[in-house]
């Protein structure tokens, strides 16, 4: 049975063009960008080239606004802890939406130990941040607010420009986690007045092990990794050149092909949603229209998500994701599904499909048939 991969939000295959581009460097060997000999200078040159490509994807003021990190988790840690601690004299409050990635929420919780206060901004049943509540929760002591561009579990795209205006009325800096959004919707950090923005290589078909943090000129933060002072002193450690080159090329390809590819996957996604919602007691989670073009997320009554995942994998060779407790490390259902108001027993029955380049329109009947049969089979087993 041919594999149908539907979990691009978790991991993406590396674009073969990126391997062609960065592979030769890996084979011939890199210099260390801190070395002054010719190999070192060449390493520095290719990193700067990658930095420029990433800057262009989000319309950053210039390439120096981009810091390469080890991934989105590290970028989120640096953005949050780095700015909160550096600006501690201006206040000891931070805030985040209730549906942020766990690396954002846990970085903020870590700050509680240093005497910070944390404000959690609720979302509505479609996952949109409550702008009224931003005004109520933020104070002049709030130095950093973190709101994601789009959510990886329910696909909802936040109204970042409005949020940015509301945040900047009260708070010093806005950090935006654009891991799920980058390359799927156009991002302009200048127009949206974003102070810090997180990007991930692998979420753009780049190699794992690289991420980036955009830092607006003038924004003050301190490093969390100390050492040789690479990346303007904000991220010490010898650069992961292969992954960085790959990320740069990934950003370039995403920028060039975004519009066309998104129209293609959106057509597949829309038909898929239409078909899957024909299943009895199937519901879309997240926003019906303000959502990532490759993202479809559902919940089904009376069945459990890990069973859905296993059944889709074992019986149909289709890889999907779930926010069920049983597939998490904490044994709690997804905080995102709880934040949009689902009850525990509802949140257990979720299935997330994230499409990518490998998917095609011919797969729609196969996927919807597999989903229907999976739900029916598990309901036959269920006493509910």
């Amino acid at each position, binding site marked *: 049975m041919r594999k149908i991969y539907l979990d691009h939000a978790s991991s993406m295959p590396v674009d073969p063009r990126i391997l062609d581009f960065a592979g030769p460097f890996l084979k011939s060997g890199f210099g260390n960008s801190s070395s002054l000999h010719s190999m070192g200078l060449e390493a520095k040159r290719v990193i700067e080239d990658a930095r420029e490509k990433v800057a262009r994807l989000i319309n950053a003021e210039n390439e120096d606004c981009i810091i390469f990190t080890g991934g989105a988790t590290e970028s989120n840690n640096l953005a949050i802890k780095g700015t909160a601690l550096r600006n501690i004299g201006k206040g000891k409050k931070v805030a985040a939406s209730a549906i942020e990635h766990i690396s954002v929420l846990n970085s903020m919780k870590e700050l509680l130990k240093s005497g910070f206060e944390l404000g959690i901004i609720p979302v509505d049943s479609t996952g949109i941040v409550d702008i009224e509540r931003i005004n109520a929760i933020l104070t002049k002591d709030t130095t950093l607010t973190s709101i994601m561009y789009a959510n990886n579990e329910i696909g909802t795209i936040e109204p970042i420009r409005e949020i940015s205006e509301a945040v900047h009325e009260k708070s010093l800096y806005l950090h935006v986690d654009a891991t799920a959004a980058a390359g799927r919707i156009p991002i302009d950090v200048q127009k949206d007045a974003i102070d810090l923005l997180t990007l991930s290589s692998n979420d753009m078909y780049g190699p794992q092990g690289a991420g980036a943090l955009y830092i607006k000129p003038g924004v003050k933060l301190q490093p969390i990794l100390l050492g040789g002072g690479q990346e303007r002193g904000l991220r010490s450690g010898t650069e992961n050149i292969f992954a960085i080159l790959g990320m740069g090329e990934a950003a370039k390809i995403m920028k060039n092909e975004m519009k066309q590819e998104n129209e293609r996957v959106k057509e597949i996604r829309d038909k898929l949603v239409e078909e899957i919602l024909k299943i009895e007691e199937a519901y879309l989670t997240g926003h019906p229209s303000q959502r990532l073009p490759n993202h479809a997320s559902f919940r089904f009554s009376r069945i*459990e998500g890990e069973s859905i995942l296993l059944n889709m994998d*074992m*019986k149909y060779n289709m890889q999907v994701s779930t926010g069920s407790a049983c597939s998490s*490390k904490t044994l709690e259902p997804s905080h995102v599904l709880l934040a949009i108001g689902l009850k*525990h027993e509802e949140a*257990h029955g979720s299935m997330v499909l994230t499409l990518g380049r490998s998917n095609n329109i011919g797969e729609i009947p196969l996927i919807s048939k597999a989903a229907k049969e999976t739900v029916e089979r598990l309901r036959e*087993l269920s*006493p*509910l």
Partner: protein
Amino acid sequence: MAQIGYSKKVLDHFTNPRNVGVIDAPDGHGKVGNPVCGDLMEIFIKVKDDIITDIKFRTFGCGSAIATSSMVTEMAKGMHVDEALKITRNDVADELEGLPPKKMHCSNLASDALHEAVKDYKGKMGNKL
């Protein structure tokens, strides 16, 4: 190496569960778990001369919840009710060639459901005497 994912036997019982269904007018019925926690299972037994002659289950839950339910019905079929009461969660996990550590408690309620069914049967017998 630590166990990663489910054993072949768990996946077999998940994919092809044995003894699924309901027994009308069962001699014993046990139900444990809670949909809020993500697992709910029920077991029905038919008993003749204290021997479990038929057994069925229905389960809402994850892969290991379904596999342990299926496994425990296979283990208990043909067994004396007193022996069935001695089947532990670990026995079920062992028969399945192990469960991932975090699944040992939350999704391994099948033996509890069996015990409840046997106790229900014994209660009914007691009432008859």
